[in-house]
């Protein structure tokens, strides 16, 4: 009954359930596609300017898709008050949190994997700087959104207007992370200097908030 085994058990259960009814994923994928298309209409992909704003556009689009994914994190647990069963058990609360966070990470990465190539196509983007750094930013940035998003999704379970509560709590706290992602992406796409500071800041953000979430999730779970 270790942290690792329960996290793994919960994660595999979630993946199995998600796989059985693929409705949620399919609709999210389609939503992501729609977001990219609408952005392309709204922000004319003229060559030079698009490289400047592409960083911002991509991450805002990812943010919207992530919110849709995060909002359904606890949907299954909510249906029959399954969380009560978890709270009454001796299982560590962090196992549940990690499983949900990693599950969301996989889901949001999947959505990004669909959206990023589309953006590259519509906006004729080519990375002029170090392309491998884009991968690092994508991973760190996605984790930054997902770790806090999963945590705030759990907090909003106990509130009215659950769906609006999540972005309301998440956006202010995510500002430094989003800024880092946007700036770093802009720098790499335009090859204009080093993105190292932003990557380090993003890493710091991830470490600080992962620790905070792991430290405080039990408090949130046990609060009625």
């Amino acid at each position, binding site marked *: 009954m270790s942290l690792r085994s329960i996290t793994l058990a919960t994660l595999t259960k979630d993946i199995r359930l998600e796989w059985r009814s693929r409705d949620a994923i399919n609709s999210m994928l389609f939503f992501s596609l729609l977001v990219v298309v609408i952005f392309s209409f709204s922000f004319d992909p003229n060559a030079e300017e698009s490289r400047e704003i592409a960083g911002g556009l991509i991450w805002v689009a990812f943010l919207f898709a992530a919110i849709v994914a995060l909002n359904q994190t606890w949907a299954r647990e909510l249906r029959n008050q399954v969380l009560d069963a978890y709270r009454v058990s001796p299982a560590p609360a962090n196992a549940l949190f990690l499983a949900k966070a990693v599950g969301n990470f996989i889901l949001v990465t999947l959505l990004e994997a669909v959206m990023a190539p589309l953006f590259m196509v519509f906006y004729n983007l080519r990375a002029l700087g170090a392309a491998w750094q884009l991968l690092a930013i994508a991973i760190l940035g996605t984790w930054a959104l997902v770790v806090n998003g999963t945590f705030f999704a759990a907090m909003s379970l106990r*509130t009215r207007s659950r769906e609006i509560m999540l972005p309301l709590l998440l956006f202010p706290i995510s500002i430094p992370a989003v800024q880092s992602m946007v700036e770093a992406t802009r720098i790499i796409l335009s090859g204009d200097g080093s993105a190292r500071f932003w990557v380090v800041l993003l890493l710091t953000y991830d470490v600080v908030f992962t620790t905070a979430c792991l430290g405080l999730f039990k408090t949130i779970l046990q609060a009625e």
Partner: protein
Amino acid sequence: MKKIFPIFAALTALLLAYGFYQAMWVAPTERTMGDVQRIFYYHVPSAWTAFCLFFTNLIASIVYLIRKNPKADALAVASAEVGVVFCTIVLVTGPIWARPVWGIWWTWDVRLTTTLVLWLIYVSYLVLRRFSDTAQTPVLAAVLAIFGALDVPLVYFSIWFFRTQHPQPVMGNGGSLDPRMLHAFLINLLAFSCFGAVVCWWRYGLEREQREVEELEALESLHGVSR
């Protein structure tokens, strides 16, 4: 404690009046900016008061999480609400000052932007308090306060670095301060701090009373009508 409050409030009112007099009449007009600069005597003290109140909220939240003391939670509510008010004053006076002087309403100045993010975080804190069920509100709100506190240094650094890449005008008070200006500034700083403390204290008292009334009502009600 209750007896001190009216005296303290009266002293604060006097300080505020004196500070007003100092700021508007005694302090000399600034060379480059003109009379608009006098906002400085309200802009900065408001920011200082807001930060003190938010810091109080952080401490109260941590104390609540450790000890589950309802008084700590009442202080957290009071300091958050009053802090948001002062923060709003900062965000309103900033652009009012910037527009005539630099011709722009807003700039991604480090301090102003950090204040904006702090304002956003605490408004979301108040919304969370309003929207959650009474039993869990204190714990959820306290956790959010801690997250907010962890976020603020990161916000500061990210904007600071952003500015070194994209230089923007500074919304500060460039140059040295005339001693009369400094005097007016310090008086107003003290006055606003006291003002913030007075309002927060009052709000805290109100919150405690409201909870006591609720508790009495709850224990007396026979058939328990919720809502």
